[in-house]
């Protein structure tokens, strides 16, 4: 790998900025929650790295979005477990994870208590506080521009100069507005450019899209607009039907009810073919997808709530494979590019690793609740596999294994936030004894060999029932065992103990 990196003139003006251009073991790009979380955990493991961000301050997308202010992920002030305990993370999806109990569950500290959904501003303040308290350092105002391979690593060209690294971790978020190719769509704003809701007073508004941002906007416009029409090719997917966060969350469903009851909101399944500007506004042409027929809408305003994409820059030229209509990198279970070795992702991009998609439920990595756990797992994986750090495994007494596994699947946020994706793994080795291998991607566990071991995960079946699933590796062969569900989600019962004891017979 080349050693000397060229600083640009601008870097000399940067004064006391951390991480001047040069070579680092790892470089993280971004200063949103994904970047901050992976930097924190790499730092805890002693892995040297630089953090670079084009932004002037931490926060990532939360510096601007959600546009209509509140998130759709909970931080519950009165949880059924002790606040600031490890298991509280399941009741607080928005706080980044830290090892020091004093700094855990930081988001509720900044909330006013009017809702268990924090506002955008509260999230932004929280992330600044996280940076201060955890002492994560970022070189702000340093824009990543180019990427090149250099031996076994990379050279990242930035606005401040070149950075060499063995491992690059991109945490730049789903931050760029994305529009499909529709004639005339360049005349209308994206959701990211939408105005405060009162400025749409008395208007007929058509929103292209029926996913989260479309519903969030429609919800905000309800008291102001004469008519709201939402159009997109596929029918609305609701989280309560998909049994996952893949779908519109109930928090934004008032427009859906208005549509069902016929109150002036219309949700139509149609493929938009053309948008024309008229003297009074816009004319939108669409064709029905789930029922035949053509639509022509005359409205005052059209907004494209058509989603987001990652700023992948020149990575495609490096061979990066993508999914989701070329918007998200295709990733392996430990969030490494499927096609560019050494290129890892953190934050919302980690949804590019979907896992086993059991019963249709993909990984829950599009939001902090899920990707914060990914960051902890990724940091350990990078430290052990690329930087020679040995992370000790805790030994378990034979009598503790069953209660420990059942406690984990009942309470652990890693397993609840990342159903079917992350599991608690315990290995059984005659020489090393019984060891807690930590939290690992289930896909990695079932697709790799190793000593006899058990992984326990939480799964949700087609009926919506949550239940523990046990994956047992004996003599290199994996078997799956689904344990009973429980209406109160208590998997620490005598029946579960009996079932798991029988499965682990001969290993304890």
């Amino acid at each position, binding site marked *: 790998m080349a050693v000397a990196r060229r600083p640009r003139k601008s870097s000399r003006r940067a004064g006391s900025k951390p991480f001047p251009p040069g070579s680092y073991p790892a470089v993280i790009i971004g200063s949103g929650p994904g970047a901050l979380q992976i930097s924190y955990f790499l730092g805890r493991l002693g892995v040297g790295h630089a953090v670079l961000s084009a932004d002037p301050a931490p926060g990532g997308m939360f510096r601007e979005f959600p546009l209509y202010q509140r998130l759709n992920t909970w931080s519950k002030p009165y949880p059924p477990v002790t606040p600031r305990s490890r298991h509280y993370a399941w009741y607080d999806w928005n706080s980044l994870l830290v090892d020091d109990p004093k700094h855990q569950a930081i988001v509720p500290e900044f909330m006013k208590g009017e809702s268990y959904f924090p506002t955008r501003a509260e999230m932004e303040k929280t992330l600044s506080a996280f940076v201060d308290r955890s002492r994560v350092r970022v070189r702000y105002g340093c824009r990543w521009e180019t990427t090149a391979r250099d031996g076994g690593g990379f050279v990242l060209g930035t606005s401040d100069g070149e950075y060499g690294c063995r491992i690059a971790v991109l945490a730049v978020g789903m931050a760029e507005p994305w529009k*499909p190719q529709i004639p005339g769509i360049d005349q209308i704003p994206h959701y990211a450019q939408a105005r405060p809701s009162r400025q749409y007073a008395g208007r007929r508004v058509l929103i292209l899209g029926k996913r989260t941002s479309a519903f969030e906007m429609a919800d905000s416009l309800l008291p102001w607009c004469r008519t709201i029409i939402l159009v997109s090719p596929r029918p609305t997917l609701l989280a309560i039907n*998909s049994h996952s966060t893949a779908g519109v969350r109930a928090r934004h469903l008032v427009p859906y009810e208005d549509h069902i009851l016929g109150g002036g909101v219309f949700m139509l399944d149609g493929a938009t073919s053309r948008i024309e500007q008229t003297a009074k506004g816009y004319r939108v042409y669409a064709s029905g997808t789930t029922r035949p027929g053509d639509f022509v809408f005359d409205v005052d305003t059209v907004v494209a709530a058509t989603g987001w994409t990652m700023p992948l820059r020149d990575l495609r030229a490096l061979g990066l*494979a*993508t999914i*989701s209509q070329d918007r998200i990198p295709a990733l392996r279970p430990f969030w490494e590019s499927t096609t560019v070795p050494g290129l890892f992702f953190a934050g919302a991009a980690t949804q590019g690793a979907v896992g086993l998609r059991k019963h249709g*439920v993909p990984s829950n990595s599009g939001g902090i609740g899920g990707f914060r756990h990914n960051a902890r797992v990724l940091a350990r994986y990078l430290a052990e596999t690329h930087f020679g750090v040995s992370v000790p495994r805790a030994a378990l007494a034979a009598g503790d294994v069953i209660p420990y596994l059942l406690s984990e699947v009942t309470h652990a946020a890693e397993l609840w936030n990342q159903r079917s994706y992350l599991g608690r793994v315990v290995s059984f080795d005659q020489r090393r004894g019984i060891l807690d291998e930590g939290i690992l991607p289930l896909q990695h566990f079932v*697709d790799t060999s190793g000593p006899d071991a058990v992984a326990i995960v939480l799964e949700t079946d087609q009926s919506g029932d949550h239940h523990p699933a046990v994956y047992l590796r004996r003599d290199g062969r994996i078997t799956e065992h689904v344990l009973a569900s429980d209406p109160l989600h208590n998997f620490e019962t005598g029946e579960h103990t009996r079932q798991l004891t029988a499965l682990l017979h001969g290993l304890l």
Partner: protein
Amino acid sequence: MATREELIDLLAGLALFADLTRPQLEAVVHSLEEEYFAEGQRVLRQGLSGSNLYIILDGEAAVQIDGKQRTTLGKGDFFGEISVLLGEPPNADVVAVRSMRCLVLAATQVEPFLLAYPHITFRMLQAEARRVRTTSVWR
């Protein structure tokens, strides 16, 4: 990588979707998820429940039972449907033998999808009939 427009064009060229209008193809592209598998990655796992329906857009996969290869699948082929329709774990592994791009339909969505697009259902039945015929010829 494939943009939305490229995916629609890809689908239009597959027998399974040959009877759909362009707006319907657009809806299908939005209803199904896209996945990419590198050579050697497993897609379906023999004996593990909760799998989904896959349609190959590009690439090739091997069907393996107890580690022994039985057949290969390529562009336009689909797999996982028997497991989904019968609610049973797959009886074979499906492994990418070269990089492969698929569309995925969650098991929970298969019934409403097939009812919404009867032409696709009919094409799938035809493909199943060919598979049964081929199996009969082997015997």
